[in-house]
């Protein structure tokens, strides 16, 4: 059995009505296409009587004007009603996360802490996403949870998403933003509310101390080669804001804005040569580091849970 694509497999109340609408549109579209093709077939092989009945200006008035206007009006009313109902929740109190699009990753500002590239939300609750851009246009989209909304410099947009069940939902940047656009993705992870509370509490804490020798060596190296000038690791000297916050990078499932599984191997590989996985990336490569040094760095970051 073929799995349904995400737009037709909604996981929340902001997306489900659109799926229902989509099905109506697809079936209606198919019927009308068949109708037109049928009329063309009649024009070619139909009997003279049938053709005579379908010729003349009456045909244009009934088919071209009457049918078109009635079906469009029905659709328009349904569409506008749905637009209004999807937008009507903007007044409610709810968890608010500010998501900023940058080339080519996502900064996530929760109340009390910052994260990146992996949006964790409580299931069964609406979440307001405040959308900002730090450079060029981006657009935020999680197909199973809601329609997309653009991130525009100088404009304060927002969007409500809600997952009605725990799960992992793919997300994309959908506004062309340059070399890294294709690989500017992210995951939205909906956790049961109690697990979400635990996660949020953990994220609000400063970074874990390196547990073993290798990780300690990694932290010293992290400090020495200047990672902290771009990255923040709360509770350490690393306080950069140019790149993603790494305070809890070890807790994330993906790396490089949703494109690589996160483990020590990919952390080391990414650090050495991020452009190999993501051409155009603004982070410089550290190919001069030895394999041992990269392992130490990866161990340190992996331990930042």
């Amino acid at each position, binding site marked *: 059995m073929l799995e349904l694509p995400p737009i037709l497999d909604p996981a929340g109340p902001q997306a489900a009505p659109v799926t229902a609408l989509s099905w109506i549109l697809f079936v209606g579209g198919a019927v009308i296409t068949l109708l037109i093709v049928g009329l063309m077939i009649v024009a070619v092989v139909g009997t003279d009587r049938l053709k005579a009945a379908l*010729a003349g200006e009456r045909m244009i008035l009934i088919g071209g004007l009457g049918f078109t206007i009635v079906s469009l009006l029905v659709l328009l009313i349904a569409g506008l009603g749905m637009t209004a109902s999807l937008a009507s929740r903007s007044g409610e109190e709810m968890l608010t996360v500010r998501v900023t699009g940058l080339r080519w990753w996502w900064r996530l500002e929760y109340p009390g802490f910052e994260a990146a590239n992996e949006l964790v939300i409580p299931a069964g609750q609406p979440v307001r996403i405040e959308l900002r851009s730090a450079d060029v246009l981006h657009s935020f989209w999680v197909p199973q949870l809601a329609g997309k909304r653009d991130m525009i410099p100088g404009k304060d947009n927002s969007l409500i998403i809600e997952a009605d069940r725990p799960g992992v939902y793919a997300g994309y940047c959908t506004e062309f933003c340059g070399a890294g656009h294709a690989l500017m993705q992210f995951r939205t992870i909906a956790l049961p509310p109690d697990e979400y509370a635990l996660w949020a509490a953990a994220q609000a804490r400063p970074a874990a101390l390196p547990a073993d020798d290798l990780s300690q060596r990694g932290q010293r190296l992290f400090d020495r080669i200047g990672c902290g000038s771009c990255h923040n690791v709360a509770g350490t000297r690393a306080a950069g804001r140019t790149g993603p916050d790494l305070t809890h990078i070890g807790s994330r499932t993906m790396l490089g804005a949703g494109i690589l599984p996160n483990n020590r191997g990919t952390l080391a590989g990414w650090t050495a040569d991020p452009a190999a996985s993501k051409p155009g990336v603004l982070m410089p490569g550290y190919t001069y580091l030895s394999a041992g040094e990269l392992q130490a760095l990866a161990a340190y970051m992996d331990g930042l849970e």
Partner: protein
Amino acid sequence: MSAKDLPEPLDENERAFEAALKNLPDRTPRPEGELEELERVWAKPKGWRTLTVVNNDYVGSWYVGASLMFFVLAGILALIMRVQLAAPLADIVGPETYNQLFTMHGTIMMFLFAVPAVEAMGVLLLPQMFAARDLPFPRLSAFAFWAYFIGGTAFFLSLFWGVAPDGGWFMNPPYTSYIFSPGVNADFWLLGIGFIEISAIAGAIEIVVGCLKTRAPGMTLDKLPIFGWAMLVFAGMIIVGFPAIILGTILLELERAFHWPFFIAEAGGDPLLWQHLFWFFGHPEVYIIFLPAAGLVSMMIPTIARAKLVGYNMVVLALVATGFISFGVWAHHMFTTGIPDLSLSFFSAASMAVSIPAGVQVFAWIATLMLARKIRFNVPTLFVFGFLVIFTMGGLTGVMLGLVPFDWQAHDTYFIVAHLHYVLIGGMVFPLFAAIYYWTPMVSQNALSERLGKWAFWLMFSGTHITFFIMHYTGLQGMPRRVYTYLPAQDVSSVNLISTVGAFTIAAGVAVFVFDMLRNFRLGGENAGNVYDGGTLEWLPQGDYCARSIPVVDSTQPLWDRPELASEVKAGQWFLPGALTGRRETIVTSPIKAIPQYLVIIPGPSIWHVLAAIGTAGFFLSLTVKLVWVAAAFGILGIGAVLRWMSEMDKGPDHPPVDVGGGMMLPVYMTGPKSHAIWAMWVLVIVFGMIFACQIFSYLFLWSGQPDAWPPAGTGAAATFPAVLSIAAYAGSFLLMIAAGRALSRVPEQAPGRFLMLLLTAIAALLAGFGGEFAAYGHIDPTASGFGATSWTFTVLNGLQVATLFLWGAFLVWRTRRGMTDGVRRLSFDCILVLWGFAAAQASISLTISAFFPLLI
């Protein structure tokens, strides 16, 4: 009793026309040598001088050919992209190259293929459909062609240096501005678009005046071939829509070159301003492409069905309605930008409404097909049927996308890629291919091959569905547009592979078509003739001079209703059977009833418009790569060639009125409201007026985003006294021009000294007015804020007008001193007066806004 049935008093022309009709067709034998003279006058130069040809059948065919060349080139770019996307994380091209590829594919397909192709069909077909000798401004169309061909080719070549634009065909800032795209790439986009703007506007002027002023006598507006209506609406839409992108490109280039912050949010600009300007042009653009194609279909379907089009009036109304409604839908490209709910509702409703006229046309075509006794499945029929299916499907997904909640999901995914290719391939490419097969026999010695054509059709038809039908699914699966690759985890690998296979199927079909064209399409000599038995005037027997004589028309399918018409026309029994003044000429008719008004002398082959095009292209190209001195040289060449070209115009009443047939005497010179040149001038003024209106919109749009910072703190307001003086100078210069016009009417009885003095004073007042603008807000820094930038843009626009008037004024001084302008021979002056009045009005309004608006609020 309707107003139409009331007898109206006839004017002098109408009485003469009615009298002449009694004598036509004139069956007395034609004088010997008349046909030879006609052939000599309209002959096309041979050898390298072929480049100087201006006859519309040649220029139109070159135009179509060049657009097809760009179609093939942009198609090849698409194939490279499809190879890259055939597998996840493929490494055929990197993102830098891929971004150039998709930008160039979209830009070339829209600007260098689709718009020029339909315009080219207009140049090729309209004079023939009107049985006019040529278009009213043949050198202008030839100039537009050369500027487009040279500029477009240079634009394409930028790919080979890796400096092609990479910001998408929509070029959204801030990505495309100097901060994020410092290279020359984006400038090449602005350059390429510049050429299309020039040639589209030139073409629109040509088509409006051609459709309204050079129809066959008796071809009242309600007998205008549907293609003529479509092209009239097309031209109207270019005149209203293109100014938005012209202004947009000016603003973006000002921002890129001089850092005027129109689109930079931190400095008081707004990236959304670009989106409004771009899509105000960009969505009508789709209908600019589609309407002519629909017009072609409405011409072919009657021939296919061997029956007149059902619902002619409704189809015309549908075309006009589409033109109007399409200007109210642009923001449906911006549903996801967070525009207000009220705007969402309005633009959603308008986007729905625009499908009503499309539905009317589809059912009119079907109703006409129902009248067919038996439909012959030749190649044009196949492509028209393919069009009906593909276009209907694209239209239906368009309705879906007009619904805001669905658009929020599908926007910027492959669902859109599928939709737009269904609409554009279905709505434009298939009709165009049908039309090329259908009308090739009109200009070529051979018709195209039925066998090859059927291969081309089936490959293209199946390929289109294989490539693009599956893309609807790819989009629902969540694949965004404009991505150079995707991850295996996105689950779109197999569907992408299918699309790649389909793309090569389309390419195979196009290759068969190209082979057919190369083998069978031959310009010149005897054409293949009316092989499909069409009923409209372009199927009259043709020579270099178009039809031998210009018939009087009283039906929409004259060749069906009057079978002897072709032989009468060929025997020279109707109007204008020869070259009556020994030069190229055609009959100018009144815009509604098509009553002959005068005989216009139209220019023949020349090198000057070609040099003007080379100068224009060279100027912009050199400027793009920052070779300022080379640019200056090309600029001088271009302006010099235009002036030389203009010096051959406005020849004055150098021939007495002639009998064009049946005893109807027509003058050979005209100025004032009947003149085709004055009409063209007014069209141009509407274009400038729309550019100016878009600039006022931009000014108010930036103000509305920051009403408290207008002007921003620390920036002074404009100085009002110099502004008032400047307005007075501009207004005064126009009054001086009116006085000069009075003085001119007494030349040559009086010496032209008084006229020249008034003209020179008017030029001086104009320059003083322009100088006053600098005194009014010279202290405002255009690079510091959106306020400064948009205020100064008024001055930029005024400066362009002042420069044009200055050059033209100097040219008029030269003409007058050479005795080429006087009280009768004054078309050059009457034309400049129209523009002068506009420029003075624009400058006065712009100064009022930029100097006084900030004080009022």
